[in-house]
């Protein structure tokens, strides 16, 4: 993205984006506010997934493990009268991070489909754990009945159980995630990840410890997935085993491919498309995955860079031509 925009324009775009995110609840109704909240939560999830897939070149089919762990821990703490919601989400994210260290340690040894299947296997282990350990996880019913305390900040206490205020909690964390992950992928660390994606052997020859970098990427990814899970548990007022199922792991994959894996905000655009398609189609019928599949298939065949990726590439070309004309103009 960096190459397409001048610094000034990029700044203006970010400001516009921030303004849109913060101003949206004033112009849309409650239902849409809830929908946007969900989109941002899943956007965080998909962004975290894409650090691994789009940037490091590892397709994880078990990412719901960390999403679910974050969700379960957060829900568990909140049900057992944990005093603070932000702290519960933080603890949830940290436990998910810990799980990512363990799962990642083993998984990053493998490549491509072997990596995909191993992560899927690990994810399903957590799923069965949540399913079977009734006394703690509530079995197939999950953990229900989350009550939200007010978010205390000194003398100010904010009631976050209204859709609008929770929207802002999520929006803050969403902006935070975007900023941190953007910083990461634009750093030299991010460059190493991308070079691992492009050519593992050559990167190894330069003396870089591939496994360590992959693991680091995996763990960071697990952290944000856990945070998204914690937010989702609060959003849904429950944590259920379906959060850990492999079909839940497929959701960030779908969003990322829809939006584009090689542009930073691709997964977010994918999340928007995903939920808008769901929103529009579930008005008429519950069977909407068929439409998603029908969008996904031609996308994979004809536009492997996704919606945002394809648009930016086209736009970039235009900009490029314009830029050349401009340069010529200056010379004459």
């Amino acid at each position, binding site marked *: 993205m960096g190459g397409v925009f001048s610094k000034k324009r990029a700044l203006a775009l970010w400001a516009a984006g921030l303004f849109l995110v913060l101003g949206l609840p004033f112009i849309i109704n409650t239902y849409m506010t809830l929908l946007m909240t969900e989109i941002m939560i899943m956007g965080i999830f998909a962004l975290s997934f894409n650090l691994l897939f789009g940037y490091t070149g590892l397709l994880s089919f078990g990412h719901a493990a960390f999403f679910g762990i974050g969700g379960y821990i957060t829900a568990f703490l909140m049900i057992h009268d944990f005093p603070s919601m932000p702290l519960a989400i933080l603890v949830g994210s940290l436990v998910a991070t810990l799980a990512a260290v363990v799962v990642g340690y083993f998984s990053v*040894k493998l490549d491509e*489909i*072997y990596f*995909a299947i*191993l992560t899927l296997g*690990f994810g399903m282990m957590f799923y069965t754990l949540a*399913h079977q350990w009734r006394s703690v996880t509530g079995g197939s019913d999950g953990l229900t009945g989350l009550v939200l305390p007010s978010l205390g900040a000194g003398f100010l206490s904010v009631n976050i159980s209204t859709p609008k205020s929770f929207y802002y909690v999520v929006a803050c964390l969403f902006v935070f995630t975007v900023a941190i992950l953007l910083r990461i992928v634009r750093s030299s660390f991010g460059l190493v990840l991308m070079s691992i994606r492009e050519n593992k052997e050559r990167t190894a020859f330069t003396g870089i410890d591939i496994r360590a970098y992959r693991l680091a990427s995996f763990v960071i990814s697990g952290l944000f997935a856990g945070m998204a899970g914690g937010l989702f548990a609060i959003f849904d007022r429950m944590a259920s085993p379906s959060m850990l199922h492999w079909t839940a792991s497929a959701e960030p994959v779908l969003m990322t491919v829809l939006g584009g894996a090689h542009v930073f905000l691709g997964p977010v655009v994918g999340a928007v498309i995903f939920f808008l398609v769901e929103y529009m189609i579930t008005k008429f019928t519950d*069977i909407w995955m068929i439409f998603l599949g029908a969008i996904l298939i031609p996308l*994979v065949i004809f536009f492997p860079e996704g919606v945002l990726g394809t648009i930016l590439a086209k736009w970039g070309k235009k900009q490029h031509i314009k830029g050349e004309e401009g340069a010529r103009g200056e010379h004459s």
Partner: protein
Amino acid sequence: MNFLNGVSLGMLLFLISIGLTIIFGVLGVLNFAHGSLYMLGAYFCFQAVSLYQNFWVAMILSPFIVAVVGGIIEMSLLRPVYGRDVSFQLLLTFGVLLVLDDAVRLIWGSGYHIVDPPEALNGIVHVYGFTYPVYSLFILFIGPLIGLGLWGFFRLTLWGKKIRAASMDREMAAGVGINVNRLFTGVFMFGAWLAGIGGTLAAPLRAIGPSMGEKIIIESFIVVVIGGLGSFPGAFVGAMVLGVINAYGAQYLPKATMALPYILLAIILLTKPRGLLSREA
């Protein structure tokens, strides 16, 4: 008793996994939609039985139609993406899975359906003092029968040899005059046919519902990984191991049964990533 149950479950898994592993071995595509083809087999069986009141007709028709569906998928969707990254092929077949699963919901509804075993096999026998459904014994026989047929096909016929050649080296096979495109379509249809017959045979055993593909695909992933992706005898060993684990686990470790296959999967992938039967570490 448990052992017999495990083995007959393993036979079904074997039929599905063998198709998955052949497709992977030759085409290099891990077919996420394979479980959906199995599900289609079961639904077509249900449809054919309710139309013709005859299970044997269903057993001929249903796998054949599934094979045709498979052929259409291969020619129209997979062919453009062979050159691409493996992950993208996985995603494409995942898209196919979404479409097929929901198409089934649209056509037959979200509820469960039941198919009765054919008249001749609808009973129980006594084996060493245990009662055992005849239909399960039938599966115990037909599984190895199809397995042997496949083995003969791959070892003895020209087409079998061509397929093995193409799975070893695609370019070389094309170089010696094998029409790789047609071969790929044939192999995919064949794999789909196997999934279809697996689904047809499973129809009288299990409730037919839209989520049956989702479950079996993960199980057959585990099977082919345990045995080694692309390996023919591996699929047999993997299927038997998984079938027996499922049957015995339910008796001795009821709580852990669900997790056992995944733990096994992780151990195999980490110690012998190319499968149990591979020679290299």
